[in-house]
């Protein structure tokens, strides 16, 4: 085709909308408030927020995998558990600072995910799901054999990794609080950073050209190949990034728990079923969905968790009702109804204001469509 000349550009891409600009400002305010929360909130708020933020991180990464890339994994507990165990290994065996150990654990989980992907990517659809679960079981069985980390019964973190950790001690010195209280705050701040990082990473990926590739692959994988998209490579990237996120989150969750056992760390219910519920209820394949979903999940859990197994059945029933009647989830349904996108990824083509017809965009007569 004709070469683009050096003259003023005639076209421009726009992704931002007035709503998203307002949302971005609100996000900044919210982050500031959340960052300051430990200065005026009590311990139970810290602990509840820790739960919400870590589950949100897991949900964002699972959503990237299942929602945006169509890789329905039921085995993310493999990387949650692996990350958690790696944290214990780094701190107990290596004496590494726990904050650094979280990052290292995520990185190694990602490294392990790379060869694992060659295994599970040979499987399609439901077989892929089963494959990911089998991988998690294998990881659990292997770690149950590691005697130095407690074998089948598990182990606990030493004081150097919890109350005496540098980050906790720093907070103790700053605020003069007891180490146990300071630890809750430290864990909360780490969870906040992780959740913001998860949202930022997923949104950044979707806003990059890789986000376009993922959408193309979901719509028509064969056609995506004919325009130069390497579908397998894209999916592998997403799988590895999700493992990195799940690994870091697992490490942080078990840093806070300070006790680990294979059955808990590789729990299908805690790290995949609940996450699945959060994403489905909130709205799959949206950034906002998991945020809404985790709040709903937390409310339900607070109200009903004392009912034991009935509670699990209720969660399952609710998930099925939502899937049947609101397949886009709470946020997805609202977003469609009110055309609301706080984290827009839609690229609009516009005439650049300098040249062309300033008052018209190519879509001026057309309805602008979102999904």
């Amino acid at each position: 085709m004709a070469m683009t000349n050096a003259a003023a550009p005639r076209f421009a891409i726009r992704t931002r909308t007035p709503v998203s600009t307002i949302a971005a400002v609100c996000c900044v305010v919210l982050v500031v408030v959340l960052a300051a929360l430990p200065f005026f909130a009590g311990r139970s708020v810290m602990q509840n927020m820790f739960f919400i933020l870590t589950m949100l991180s897991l949900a964002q990464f699972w959503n990237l995998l299942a929602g945006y890339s169509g890789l329905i994994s039921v085995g993310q507990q493999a990387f949650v558990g692996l990350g958690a165990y790696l944290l214990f290994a780094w701190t107990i065996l290596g004496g590494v600072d726990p904050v650094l150990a979280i990052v290292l654990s995520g990185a190694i989980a990602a490294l392990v995910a790379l060869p694992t992907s060659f295994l599970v990517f040979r499987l399609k659809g439901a077989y892929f799901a089963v494959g990911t679960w089998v991988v998690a079981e294998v990881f659990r069985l292997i770690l149950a054999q590691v005697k130095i980390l407690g074998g089948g019964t598990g182990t606990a973190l030493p004081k150097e990794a919890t109350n005496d950790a540098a980050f906790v001690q720093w907070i103790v010195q700053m605020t003069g609080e007891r180490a146990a209280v300071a630890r809750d705050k430290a864990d909360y701040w780490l969870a906040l950073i992780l959740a913001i990082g998860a949202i930022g990473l997923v949104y950044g990926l979707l806003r990059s050209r890789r986000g376009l590739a993922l959408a193309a692959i979901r719509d028509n994988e064969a056609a995506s190949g004919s325009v130069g998209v390497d579908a397998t490579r894209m999916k592998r990237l997403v799988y590895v990034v999700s493992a990195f996120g799940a690994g870091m989150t697992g490490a942080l969750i078990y840093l806070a728990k300070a006790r680990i056992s294979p059955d808990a760390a590789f729990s299908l219910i805690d790290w995949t079923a609940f996450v699945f519920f959060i994403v489905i209820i909130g709205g799959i394949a949206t950034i906002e969905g998991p945020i809404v979903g985790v709040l709903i999940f937390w409310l339900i859990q607070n109200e009903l968790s004392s009912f034991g197994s009935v509670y699990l059945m209720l969660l399952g029933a609710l998930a099925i009702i939502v899937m049947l009647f609101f397949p886009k989830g709470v946020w997805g349904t609202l977003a469609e109804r009110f055309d609301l996108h706080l984290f827009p990824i839609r690229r609009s083509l516009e005439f650049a204001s300098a040249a062309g017809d300033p008052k018209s965009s190519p879509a001026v007569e057309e309805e602008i469509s979102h999904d």
Partner: protein
Amino acid sequence: MILELRDLSKSFGALKAADAISFDVPEGEALGIIGPNGAGKSTLFSLVSGALAPSAGRVLLDGRDVTRASAQQRCVAGIGRSHQIPAPFEKLTVFENLLVAACFGRGKREAEVVESCGEVLEATGLLSKANRLAGSLSLLDRKRLEMARALATQPRLLLLDEIAGGLTEGECQELVAAIRKIHASGTTIIWIEHIVHALLAVVSRLVVLNFGRLIAQGDPREVMDSAQVREIYLGSPI
């Protein structure tokens, strides 16, 4: 030679959709392919673009054997194709369909390809629908999008599969003019088309397929006048 096919064959069970097809395409040529329904024309495109693996034979691009290369690798190497049955990315907009093709087909960033995507939309008459979801397009516009998306990858070899069907005479003239312009800019073109008068306005050579076999090739007029081709098309208007 930009493209060389060597005894290319493809079987679907007992059916030979491509049967030892060999021909060369010099750089810069505009080649037409005709043949009755089910002759294996689209199958041949899939073999060239890498969407299908051949049962036997080889595909050479610029003299390099790409028989084992994936569709993605062949796109990056310069082959662009339109699909006979449009395969748009339905939940992306028309513009985003081009954007993904331009970014990945050419290994560029989004900001670097905006202008050329806009120009392709303009040239293919899709500019006013740039921000519409591809899934909401009419069949005619979906076909336009097929060509536009292939062009967005800036191919050196463009494969067009029946894009003129259903157009009015005026639209057909515009399409012919657009394709001639693409050809004039140096792109090699292979065009499968049942609308023969449109095809003959562009191509300088014609290949005829029937039952998966290459049965005639050469000067378009001579090929169309040959007894063999007349026999195949007997009863169907040319």
